[in-house]
Each structure stands twice: as C-alpha cells, then as structure tokens.
C-alpha cells in the first residue's frame, strides 16, 4: 500500500491524539468496531461563550488504517474554530481525493463521518433550547 504525502504526514505525526476530552462542554461520537477492523471516536469540546457555538478542541482515538488515522488527525487539527454543524467540513468524496484513499476503503471513511456527525449532533442537542 502506498500513501500520498499528506496521508503520510498526518499518520506519522497524528495530532489530536493526546487523551480524551471530558467535561460538560465535551461531546463524544464513535462508530465502527475493532472486531471489524475500523473504529473511530471523536471528542469535541465546544466553546460555550457568547455567539454561535464553535469547536474549541478535538481529540480522537482510532483503531484503523493509516488513511483513517490521517483523516481523523486532519479533522482534529482543522476544525477548532469552526461553527458546530453536524457534518464534515468537506465531503467524504473530497476527503477521499485529498488523502488519496482507495475506493474500496470508502466504507472506512463513512465510519469517520458517522463518528464525527455523532459527536457534533450530541453537541447540537446539548445546546438546543429546552422546552419552556
């Protein structure tokens, strides 16, 4: 298996792997299974200041191939400061191209997407106004 330069860089120097985030402003989403070969978990810390909610920090855990570790690491690095939205900052197809992920591994990228969306949905749900 060969990897492009971006994948190699984010795999070899994966950021966002220093532990997990725990607290009232931290939200977790996970997808996949170790037994099936790919499992990803994101912890997203939300900036609870005034204005639109933004991602403050991201940590991830991944039992996965280098492509998936690289994509997860890239998300952890790129998304702090972004508004909370239950979607990837770019499409799965775009990520596939950016990291030169082989098409048969597309399902693994969907696991990343599911884990990411689960974390962001949890954050959105927590910030949604409750019933009066």
């Amino acid at each position, binding site marked *: 298996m060969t990897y492009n330069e971006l994948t190699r860089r984010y795999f070899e120097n994966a950021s966002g792997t220093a532990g997990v985030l725990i607290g009232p402003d931290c939200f977790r989403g996970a997808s996949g299974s170790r037994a099936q070969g790919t499992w990803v978990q994101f912890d997203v810390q939300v900036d609870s200041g005034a204005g639109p909610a933004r991602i403050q920090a991201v940590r991830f855990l991944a039992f996965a191939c280098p492509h998936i570790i690289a994509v997860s690491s890239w998300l952890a690095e790129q998304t702090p400061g972004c508004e909370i939205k239950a979607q990837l900052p770019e499409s799965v197809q775009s990520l596939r191209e950016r990291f030169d992920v*082989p098409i048969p591994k597309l399902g693994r990228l969907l696991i990343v997407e599911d884990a990411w969306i689960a974390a962001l949905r949890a954050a959105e749900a927590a910030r949604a106004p409750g019933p009066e």
Partner: protein
Amino acid sequence: MNGPSCVYLDYAATTPVEPLVAERMAQCLGRDGVFGNPGSTSHVYGEAASERVEAARAEVAATVGAEPAEIIWTSGATEANNLAIFGVAQYNAQVGRHIVTVRTEHKAVLDPCRELERRGWRVTYLTPDRSGVLDPAAVAAALRPDTVLVSVMHVNNEIGVIQDIAAIAALCARSGSARLHVDAAQSIGKCAVNFSELGIDLLSLSAHKAYGPKGVGALVVSRARGVQLKPLQYGGGQERALRSGTVATHQVVGMGVAFALVKAAPRDETLRIALLRDRLWDGLRSIGGVLRNGDSERSVPHLLNVSFEGVEGESLVAAVRPHIAVSTGSACTSINQEPSYVLRALGRDDRLAESSLRFSFGRFSTAADVDTAVSAVRRAVERLRRIGGA
C-alpha cells in the same frame, strides 16, 4: 550502496546473491565467457556450457541427497510445484484423481490444486494443529485408494514450522499409489534435507532463498522410485523432456554455486541465527500483548512470526516500514487486505492475523539489526495502541 537502507529482516522472501555466485554467473554471459547453448554439444561453446550446467546439477543434487539425473531445472519453486502437481495428477489420471494437501501450503501448491479441482480432481485440504504442525495420522486418514499425490511443504514460509516429512513419506509409500511432493523452497540452508533418505518422490527447490539468483529452481524427481509425470510444456525435449526450453546456463550455474556454499556453511551459523531469533523474541515479548505464531520447538531458527494485540495491521506495517523490511500477515500489496490464510488456519482471528509480522534472518543479520527492529516495533506498537485507546 544503491538499495534502500533500512534493516533487512525478510530473508524468507528472498536473499541477496552471494558475490561468488554473481561472479560465476557473469562468466556465462559475455562473448568471452561460457555463453553457448548447453544443448548444442556439437561444438565447444555448447560443450563448455553443458559442463557448467552438469556441474551445477551435481552440486544441487549433492546438497539435497539426490542423484544428478534426478534434477530438473525450472524457473523457480512455483514452476517446480506446478510441474509436480499437474505432472503427477495428469500422468496418473487413469489411476486416481484424489490429492491430499494442507491448508497452510504456499499458494504455488494451493492454486494448482484448486485448478485441478476445477478440472474434476478431488482435493482433501488438511488442517494442522494450532501451532502449525500437521499430524501424520491426518495424512493417513485422508489417503484413499485413488489418492495419487500428497503435497506437504517441509518448512512453512510464514511460520517456519517443520513438518514430519519422513513419517508422511512412509505413509505414502505404504499406500501404493500416492506420490509425495515436498515444497522445500524454505528449507535449504535452514535445516537438513535428504531427498533419498526421507523417501520423497518429488522435491521443489528455489535458488533465490539461498543466496542464488531469482528465476531458477529445480524439481527433484525420484528415479529410484520410478516417478512418472506429464510435462507442462513441449519443445526441445530438454530436462528429460519434462521441461523443454533452452537451459539458462548462468541461472543454473548460480544455483549450483549457491547450493555448494550452503553445503559448505559453518555449522555454528545456525546457532548464531537461533541466538538472534531468541534475542528478537525476548525484545518483542517485553512490549506485552505479543503472541508467537507457530510451534517454537519444531521450527527453523531463521524465522519468527508474531501477532500484536490491539494494533491494526496496516498501520503497524506503515509505522515500521521506514525502519525495517519485514513481511506482514496481510496481503497489503492489494487494496483489500486479506488476513494471512496460514494464520487463520492456525485459529488466529482476522485482527491478529493482520497484525502479524514475519521476521526472517540470514547470513548478514546482526544483533544490531535485531535491536533496531525491537525498538522500531516497540515505538510503533505503543503509539498505535495509544491512538487506538487500547
């Protein structure tokens, strides 16, 4: 140095050509050398080439305890396996169409067997125990009156386990109809092989696993036991008409020299390699969560196969790749990772089969290589376990 610079621990995949081998091969290539067609013995050029080919044949035969006339040159062990399996099966098609082999054989045995199944033969695939050892009783139980071939490798290429060929040969001999084919591609220079003493009918050999060139091997076909087989290719009738085609003088000369060097190798080399293997195992198991694959007592010292718990296989390979050259437990040359069928046959689950690494040692391996490997693997495993939350 023109090649890559990381530590090479993949001698079971291939070995560098010994300088003396390369030198003797080169003597058979140029205008001033022994370039003649060894089949053209009507002139001195051909005669000189023929002499070199026959000298190589004698060296290879002597190394494996066979007669020179029993050596059939091939392009490698894969062709030798194909010639043995198809050759015996097709020659004996009227006698019987049943073959016995083992799930942990090399693809060069399993794929020809599968092809024969497609053509109407029946194949029994035996499963070794969890340490990779095949009980000869399983062979005995599988033999039928219509069994024409049993194919069992001597040393397994992934886990290094040595099978009890003598016992299996005795069973085949008793059966009356079953010929025994042994793939010994991994055996030469690692453990003793004596074709006639073991009672083998057909033996596959490779040069490049023993510091010879790639692209040449041999099938040893017992004359004393009257083994007959049908050729796979037809042409000039070379090699007792079993393998037509001009003999590649430089290649077989290289194989002859390589095998002669194996025969002359100091006995303490095996002990040196065994110490390296033990040093590696001690280092790796101190990481924790490391499982050894294959029977540690009944295996060649040149090979160590281990699985790492809590580590994804492809990432492990990618992480160690800059530092060491080893084989992996998955076919990661393909995009769809397939866990090692050998390790799966031993009962390892897919994740452990994928996270396995095969380290294999050779003439140029050193303790420093082992220490580099241990530290590279330790760093990779600890980092990936941290990333994986293990």
